[in-house]
């Protein structure tokens, strides 16, 4: 088996006294789509934020493509970290629940800013890339519009294009459809689905179980800062082996009243 693209190794994340991630270990292979589910407060979003290096970790390591992306601040004697290659911060692309586009910039400037400033890409090249990405997410006619003029679904697709412009090796999606009106969810999921089909490695935190079932190669169930179960979507949804997983899924189905079960 080849080396996994992402290795999360014994990661501990604490906010003062509260432990949010408790020795979490996880590997993701290149091209794999992994969906992370779990109740709120289970640590799934924190896991993504640690991968994106928005949060320091106290213990453990995160490797991306064999390079160190994060190491525990309380670990001592990890002499390997000093000399090991450091992952580039833009190896990881992240899409947020609240889009977080830059409101003072047009859509195309949102996309070209980082390639130009971080990768040193000339303006024309960055714009060609941006137009191509906008076409892929179906927003080619919105290039010169400010984000506030876009619907939530359009903003989120623009945010996906912005993240892709850095050619990340992995894309993180943190509840990206949770802030959207129901009728706009589909267009964002469709964009993510086509991204998965193109072989992008993806870690997706979502409550969209139909998406998880269809698109995920594997589903991880998290609870109270630990990974409870990891398995294929068919298995985890139809025959979860852990009682906690089953209880969570049942609660979820109850709340949805069965109406969206088969979407």
């Amino acid at each position, binding site marked *: 088996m080849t080396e996994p693209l992402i290795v999360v190794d014994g990661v501990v994340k604490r906010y003062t006294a509260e432990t949010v991630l408790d020795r979490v270990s996880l590997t993701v292979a290149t091209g794999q789509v992994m969906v992370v589910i779990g109740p709120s407060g289970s640590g799934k979003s924190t896991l993504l934020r640690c991968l994106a290096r*928005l949060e320091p970790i106290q213990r453990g390591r995160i490797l991306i493509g064999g390079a160190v992306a994060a190491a525990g601040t309380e670990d001592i004697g990890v002499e390997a970290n000093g000399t090991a290659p450091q992952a580039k911060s833009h190896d*990881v692309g992240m899409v947020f629940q609240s889009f977080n586009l*830059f*409101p003072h910039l047009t859509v195309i400037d949102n996309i070209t800013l980082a390639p130009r*400033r*971080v990768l040193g890409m000339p303006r024309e090249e960055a714009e060609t890339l941006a137009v191509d990405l906008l076409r892929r997410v179906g927003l080619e006619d919105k290039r010169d519009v400010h984000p506030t003029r876009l619907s939530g679904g359009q903003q989120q697709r623009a945010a996906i294009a912005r993240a892709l412009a850095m050619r990340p090796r992995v894309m993180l999606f943190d509840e990206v459809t949770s802030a959207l009106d129901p009728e706009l969810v589909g267009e964002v999921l469709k964009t993510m689905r086509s991204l998965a089909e193109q072989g992008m490695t993806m870690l997706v935190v979502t409550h969209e179980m139909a998406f998880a079932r269809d698109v995920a190669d594997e589903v991880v169930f998290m609870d109270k800062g630990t990974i409870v179960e990891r398995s294929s979507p068919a298995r985890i949804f139809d025959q979860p082996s852990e009682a906690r997983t089953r209880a969570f899924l049942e609660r979820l189905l109850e709340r949805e009243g069965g109406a969206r079960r088969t979407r």
Partner: protein
Amino acid sequence: MNGSPFGVVLSYLPDFLNGVLLTFELGFVSVSLGLLLGLVLALARRSQYRLLRWPTYAYIEFFRTTPPLVQIVWLYYGLPLLFGFDLGGFGAAAVALGLNVAAFFAEIFRAGIAGVDRTQWQAARVLGLNLIDTLRFVILPQALRNVLPPIGTTAIYLIKDTALASAIGTPELLRVGQLVANETFRPVEALTVVAVAYFVLTYPIAFGFAALERRLSAMRA
């Protein structure tokens, strides 16, 4: 018209114009210095390093809480005495007012930067932008539109505070007004001319900032 009270005062028009020019220069230099230093102070105030934060805090509170008139006098009389370094009247007034207004601008910038949603920092971070680029392209442009009104108001205050330079004999607008009043025995008329001149100097700032604000908010929509 030369017989009327204003006519007498207005015969000093060339002197008034020189005063206007000097007031303008004083205001321009000190506002520019204040904006630049104020931005640096605001960033230092937000720094993760105490060694930067604490002296910045002390600086801001010191200059905010002592009278600008005293600050001008300190620089004008104090510097040559203590260090044998003479800035001259214009220099001492411009530097003192610049250092003073920087403390106010710093607090305004700090509030403006804090007003930008912290998710904007996170978005910039995951895209790999460094701190300077994040400030320059993401945070400051958004902070700027938040701070335009208070920056404009403070700049207008400062232009009027340049009148304090008259205390050390700098022949700016108010000083000219005082001299004319003494020579003509027409203090009310002389000072009214001074007031009109200040209005002419400061109103374009008020107008310009309001226009800029409208333009920026139109861009956003």
